[in-house]
């Protein structure tokens, strides 16, 4: 992939837990060996449930949590290894939109200052031009310039998310990492925000890393999608391939669990039922991480962990029960 913008290789993020004075130190393996490439100008989605490590992956790419192992390259820059001033300068190129619009703006800072501070911190343009630039960002994200003096609590959730987007776009980044950008919003507002993101992507040639638990949103927004389960990617493919022909039993279960707008089209008998909740990333079982909930698990699944391997054009899966030709050898 010559036009790759973000290349993540074997990323691991382990958090130490417990380990007081006498206790043994344990680790939560939130992200445990994740690799993917994002093409410039495309949208790469990561779906998964809580504890899958999708948000931690986003934070690690943003260098907001310590990376335990692995490489993260943004174009030629090794952003996974940069430190201090070098990292600070490079931050102009990758920015983030956060999940909770009620927490991601400083409540005691005016909306306009949130954007202006971003321009100042990243030293965008000449200081004298920055107020005008902040105003331009405000209008580009569908806000009014006279709202710049208001405080965050005076905005609705959707408007706040627009401010967050304006702040992220201040330095014209190449990559925007979006962690559940619309899950806190109402459906109608969600559509407005998604449309805005699509328009801005076309206008500025943005590349998105898009994290979400909402399959409908991911299907709509992403060109390529990775499904994460307990810190690992279990399946990755182009949108068409993944949604038309899901291969991993977890992906299938996830797809069949999502409510459909088609009443009666899918009887509940056809649903793949998963028992229980995902296990905790504190004690990951040996073998395939999904084996404990998988309706098709065999003995082999419980002893050896499957690797993510190519099973078709732009389709990778980590499952013992899918053969190399991309045929599911189960039920």
């Amino acid at each position: 992939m010559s036009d790759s913008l973000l290349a993540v290789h074997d990323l691991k993020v382990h958090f130490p837990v417990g380990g007081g004075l006498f206790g043994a130190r344990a680790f939560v393996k939130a992200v445990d060996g994740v690799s993917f490439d994002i093409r410039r100008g495309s949208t790469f989605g990561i779906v998964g449930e809580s504890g899958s490590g999708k948000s931690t992956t986003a934070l690690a790419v943003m260098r907001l949590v310590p990376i335990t192992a692995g490489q993260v390259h943004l174009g030629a820059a090794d952003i996974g290894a940069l430190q201090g001033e070098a990292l600070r300068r490079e931050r102009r190129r990758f920015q983030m939109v956060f999940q909770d619009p009620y927490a991601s703006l400083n409540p005691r800072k005016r909306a306009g200052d949130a954007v202006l501070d971003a321009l100042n911190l990243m030293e965008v343009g000449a200081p004298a031009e920055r107020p005008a630039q902040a105003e331009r960002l405000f209008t580009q994200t569908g806000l009014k310039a006279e709202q710049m003096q208001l405080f965050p609590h005076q905005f609705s959730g959707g408007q706040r998310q627009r401010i967050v987007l304006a702040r992220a776009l201040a330095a014209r980044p190449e990559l925007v990492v979006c962690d559940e950008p619309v899950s806190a919003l109402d459906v109608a507002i969600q559509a407005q925000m998604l449309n805005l993101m699509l328009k801005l992507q076309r206008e500025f040639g943005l590349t998105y890393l898009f994290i979400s638990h909402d399959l409908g949103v991911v299907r709509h927004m992403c060109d390529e999608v990775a499904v994460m389960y307990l810190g690992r990617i279990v399946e990755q493919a182009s949108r068409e391939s993944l949604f038309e022909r899901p291969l991993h039993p977890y992906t299938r279960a996830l797809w069949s669990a999502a409510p459909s707008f088609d009443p009666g089209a899918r009887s509940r008998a056809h649903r793949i039922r998963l028992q229980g909740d995902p296990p905790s990333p504190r004690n990951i079982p040996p073998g395939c991480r999904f084996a404990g909930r998988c309706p098709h698990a065999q003995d082999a699944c419980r002893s050896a962990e499957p690797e993510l391997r190519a099973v078709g054009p732009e389709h990778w899966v980590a499952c013992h029960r899918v053969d190399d030709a991309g045929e599911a050898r189960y039920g």
Partner: protein
Amino acid sequence: MSLLAVEDLSVEFRTRRGVARVLDRVSLGIERGQTLGVVGESGCGKSVTALAMLRLIASPPGRITGGRVHFDGRDLLALSEDEMRQVRGNRVSMIFQEPMTSLNPAYTVGDQIAESVRLHQGLTRREAIERAAQMLDAVSIPDPARRVHEYPHQFSGGMRQRVMIAMALACQPDLLVADEPTTALDVTVQAQIFDLISELREKTGTAVMLITHDMGAVAEMTDRVAVMYAGHVVESAAVADVLREPLHPYTRGLIACAPGARTVAPGQLLDEIPGTVPSLVERGAGCLFAERCAHVQPRCRAELPPHSEPAPGRTVMCWLHTQ
């Protein structure tokens, strides 16, 4: 006769900016054993409807200003507080979005389920705990005899919501009100909870009122749907009819703007509902959706449309459908 018939229920909230009419003549009905979905965005009044029905609105600032709630032949709004307590938790029970905060962390789940059974059905403590274990078994919690003595923090989010359902159904109510019961849960766990509610409904004949923001959940779970917007029921009908042919422009917008409904190709712009929900304090004379509506006519701004019945069992509140 319907199990529940809400007629012209109105609720006001006193706020600093003035009086907000949060519910304006809301009417809806549920037959025995049926499932009604109440769908709308935050602030539309869907949760307030459920709370007002059970007279659980905090007053002040809230106040029920009119209407009737016929439940099994009686008007709940006319009952004494004592009689009302016999209805709540016994004949109508409720589950909420946050299964963590709805359970008391200081008592075992068995004690909490047993309490309502003892209160309403006069069982002894031993019998009540036994009944609690049966209920945990009914909601598919493994090893119920042991888990009945455990505390809420020992259960996962999905399991806690099962406990809530067990508690709600312990007295075999006629109506279960579920207010966003799966919003805090993962998709696969949501599917489990939905399956469980459907199964129990088929088994026990309990009617369900599912309050949600998710049109997909409504399509999946319910027989009928009431779409709420700014304190009004703007459309109500059988779910299949609404999904096939939504009549109110707001309903149409709500379905079209959900990416999950796939009304446009991936990557294309979704149909937006422009603007935001209007203030409930300074409301004009006309239809509250007029400012956001693509089909707005002069009349819409001047006069509130009536509830018309374009087909049997189907109501809509829009000037486009009044002949």
